[in-house]
């Protein structure tokens, strides 16, 4: 046994073992001193560390809450919740259906607009090309009046 450190010192390796043990012992002793010092931090530093810790814990709670929130709707598609799954799928398809219907309506309205514009142009052309004598016809004048209104 090493008389100083009470460590086993096997023949051949004794020096190395004792040396390592000595280093470790010294290191731990210094570490104990450092611990004493770290326990006596100024109040403001301790408070800021506490605040930092609480912020980190809040983040951890948020991080664990998000997967739970994601998992809850997913449970509706499980075998036990088949009915809910159908409605969830239907609900997810509805916006697509509404979009397609809207596009069709817009297309139809556009076609009507084109048709009306073409008719107006035709009417204008026809009225321009009429011989002046046509305006003497009371029936045709009445027709134009009705179309204009």
């Amino acid at each position: 046994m090493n008389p100083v450190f009470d460590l086993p010192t096997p023949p051949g390796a004794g020096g190395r073992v004792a040396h390592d043990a000595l280093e470790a012992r010294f290191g731990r002793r210094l570490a104990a001193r450092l611990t004493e010092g770290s326990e006596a931090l100024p109040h403001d530093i301790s408070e800021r560390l506490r605040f930092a810790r609480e912020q980190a814990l809040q983040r951890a709670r948020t991080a664990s809450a998000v997967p739970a929130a994601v998992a809850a709707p997913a449970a509706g598609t499980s075998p036990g919740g088949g009915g809910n799954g159908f409605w969830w799928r239907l609900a997810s398809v509805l916006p697509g259906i509404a979009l397609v219907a809207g596009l069709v309506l817009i297309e139809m309205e556009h076609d009507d607009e084109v048709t009306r514009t073409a008719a107006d142009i035709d009417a204008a052309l026809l009225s321009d090309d009429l011989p002046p004598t046509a305006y003497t016809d009371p029936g045709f004048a009445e027709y134009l009046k009705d179309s204009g209104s």
Partner: protein
Amino acid sequence: MASDKELSDFLKSVEKRAFKRTVYAVRDDDAALDIVQDSMIRLADKYADRPPAELPLLFQRILSNATMDWFRRQKVRNAVVRNFSDFESSDPDEDFDLLEALEAVAHPAAVEGAEHGVARAQILTAIEAEVARLPDRQREAFLLRYWEELDVAETALAMGCSEGSVKTHCSRAVHSLARALKAKGVQP
């Protein structure tokens, strides 16, 4: 998975040492607080679902990386220069008698008598100054190994180096500290 209380207890147990360790590295209280806070949040964000036993090593790794990030951001290159001393092939004081320097360790009763008030504070101040003066890698290895009580393999993992490097860094750190404290007449 670590519970809220387990994570809280872990952070509480490690926060002061983490702060001091970072202060030794960056020499700025505010920066050290930011780094520790950032490390805590990273741990809570990404690893709160890990078992409590894994938290110490993960946190030390995160703290080391956060400190390195800070150095990169600050473009402080003198730390790299200091690290060159780690590559020295031989110890200039190879014949330094560690046994003699640490004799007091074997006789704690003889030291206890001097441990009062101001003397205790002076000893602590001297130790902290010498720890802060160590090359970065030596200091990190020393503190992880003896202060955070990680074993050699865990320290190597936290530092991203081999176990042999950890042993070398620790040994050199201990010798440097013993030599410096002896020169100051400080018996830890």
